[in-house]
């Protein structure tokens, strides 16, 4: 099938009445989850996840994906107006966004970042459309050893490019894989680590809600004060000067390029992309001293990077079946529940799903621009609702969302357990994303490992005898000295960095 007929097929799917409706619902909820600090896209996706049982698979993914990239647009509002990142990805946006708001240029900042988000998103979608089919075609040749090697590589990458210490992230990956072991072993039927409480595996939703949702809410309470928003600064001048536009053009494109690359890598791809693009712009700038005082480059580059990364993150998720972030895990899960496995076969067997979802991203991004330019005032009003009304609402949705996936209070107790764990992880500065990726990929990795061993008659060298798996294994071993080096470097630099915190 040619590219054009695929696009036509995708458009016809994406523009159906119900798909348009759920695309709109998704980006609305996504914006909302981004706007309100303490709720991220992951919490919002978890809450709406049970709804996907009643939807066709394409519609389900269109809605969940809308939440995911909608939050990318929403999170910058609180960062610019309140100096509080709406989602962790937008932490870097505070550095120059809030000074701009203080100069009475919040409207300009919001408009420029909306443009940057749209440009970054568009570049990301284009790359997804170009490279998705190529990667899927290539991956058709993958067997158990290749998948094991690729997942191992993915998890190692996820921990090295995660925020903070690489070794702590690696420990969280392993911990996540360990939680994935809980439940009945598929080969022998032995219940592992269940202690007679329940034989079911740990619920993904409950784990995600606890480690992310509840923990985020806990640290956001008593931490924000929306009374400082100056409505005049937002609705006043919104017209960027020619100087602003000239300064934004290249950083937006550079941000998109960086974001597109990091989005493919699993782990905190979007987070790293936005931080790195800020650092890049600061380094490239002729007058780096303007950064931190309201430089427009410092807000457009991370926003563009974030949105490009959100789109290219769908490449590994949809074409390899390897989710690149915790939110992607849930989107892949929504397909799996409906009996459709994301992976190389998806594009051939269900081109309508792949292309329908991808084309809906264009529609979603256009809707988001409309929601963000003429209707920006509504979101600011939502941001001004006192947090003491917002967070109990979030918790109610977290609890009900978890409860109705299986109708058992055991899952809610799981949220309690992982909520405590998630809070402790924040106190001790352990990243949560690697744990979630490990939790999801772990059981699959064990399965692929055992299949490979059967295939190779117990010889571990089989991983090096097949070219593709050998390639990834060599990369894995090449990363080991890199991790050791980063640990040594950390222990030297940590004192300096901790002083800055």
């Amino acid at each position, binding site marked *: 099938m040619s590219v054009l007929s695929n696009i036509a097929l995708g458009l016809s799917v994406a523009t159906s009445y119900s798909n348009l409706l759920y695309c709109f619902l998704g980006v609305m909820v996504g914006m909302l989850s981004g706007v309100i600090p303490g709720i991220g896209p992951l919490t919002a996706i978890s809450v709406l996840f*049970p*709804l996907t049982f009643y939807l066709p698979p394409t519609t389900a993914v269109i809605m969940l994906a809308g939440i995911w990239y909608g939050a990318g647009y929403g999170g910058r509002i609180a960062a610019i107006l309140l100096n509080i990142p709406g989602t962790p990805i937008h932490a870097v946006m505070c550095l120059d966004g809030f000074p701009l708001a203080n100069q009475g240029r919040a409207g300009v900042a919001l408009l420029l970042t909306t443009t940057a988000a749209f440009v970054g998103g568009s570049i990301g979608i284009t790359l997804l459309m170009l490279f998705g089919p190529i990667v899927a075609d290539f991956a058709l040749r993958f067997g158990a050893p290749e998948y094991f090697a690729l997942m191992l590589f993915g998890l190692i990458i996820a921990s090295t490019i995660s925020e903070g*210490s690489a*070794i*702590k992230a*690696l*420990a969280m990956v*392993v*911990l996540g894989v*360990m939680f994935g072991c809980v439940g009945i*072993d598929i*080969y*022998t039927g*032995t219940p*592992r*680590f269940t202690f007679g409480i329940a034989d079911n595996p740990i619920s993904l939703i409950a784990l995600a809600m606890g480690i992310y949702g*509840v923990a985020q*809410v*806990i*640290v956001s*309470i*008593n931490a924000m004060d929306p009374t400082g928003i100056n409505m005049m600064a937002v609705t006043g001048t919104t017209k960027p000067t020619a100087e602003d536009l000239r300064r934004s053009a290249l950083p937006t494109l550079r941000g998109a390029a960086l974001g597109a690359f990091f989005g493919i890598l699993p782990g905190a791809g979007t987070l790293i992309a936005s931080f790195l693009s800020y650092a890049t712009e600061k380094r490239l700038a002729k007058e780096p001293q303007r950064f931190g005082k309201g430089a427009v480059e410092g807000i457009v580059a991370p926003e563009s990077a974030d949105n490009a990364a959100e789109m290219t993150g769908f490449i590994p998720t949809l074409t390899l079946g390897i989710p690149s972030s915790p939110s992607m895990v849930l989107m892949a899960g929504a397909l799996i529940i409906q009996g459709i496995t994301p992976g190389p076969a998806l594009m051939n067997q269900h081109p309508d799903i792949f292309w329908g979802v991808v084309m809906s991203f264009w529609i979603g991004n256009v809707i988001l621009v409309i929601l963000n330019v003429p209707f920006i005032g509504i979101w600011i009003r939502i941001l001004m609702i*006192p947090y*003491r*009304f917002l*967070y*109990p*609402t979030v*918790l*109610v949705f977290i*609890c*009900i969302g978890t*409860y*109705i996936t299986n*109708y*058992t*209070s055991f899952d*809610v*107790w799981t*949220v*309690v357990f992982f*909520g*405590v764990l998630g*809070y402790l992880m924040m*106190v*001790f*500065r352990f990243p949560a994303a690697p744990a979630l990726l490990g939790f999801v990929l772990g059981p699959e990795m064990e399965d692929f*490992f*055992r299949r490979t*061993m*059967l295939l190779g*008659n*117990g010889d571990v060298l089989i991983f090096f005898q097949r070219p593709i798996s050998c390639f990834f294994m060599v990369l894995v071993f090449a990363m080991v000295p890199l991790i050791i080096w980063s*640990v040594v470097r*950390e*222990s*030297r630099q*940590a*004192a300096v960095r*901790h002083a800055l915190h």
Partner: protein
Amino acid sequence: MYSRDYRDIVSGGVLTVFGAWFAWYAITHYGRGTMTNVGDGLFPAALGTILAFLGLAIVLAGLRREGSKFGFRFREPVFVILGVAGFALTIGSFGLVPAIVVLTVLASLADLNVRPLGLAALCLVLCLLVYLIFVVGLKLAIPIAAWPHWE
């Protein structure tokens, strides 16, 4: 500032102990199998061992450097967790409305500016919202309120 990074020493130590226990439990309770036919204990045992060593590395790195002060907040985590636990306790036997009220009241106590009237209004709004979305909209079979019946 502390002369050592106690944040990492404590957390690394906990991970080491947990990893070692996990590996020990897997080795003693599940089969190792052969290399061709890998048993159900090998993978968890390997994971536990790896985690124990990673934890040890975190401890060692923490011993070599200074660390910033750290502390727990009590009010926020305790009331939020109590709220979720309260929901878990009540949802099965009392139904939706009591569970939402218990969660909302307990969780709201985490905020320093909680006021009775606002809290009552919030409970009312949330019950109505949930009823409209989940019971009317999605037609889920959750009892709105029920007398307890323990089996």
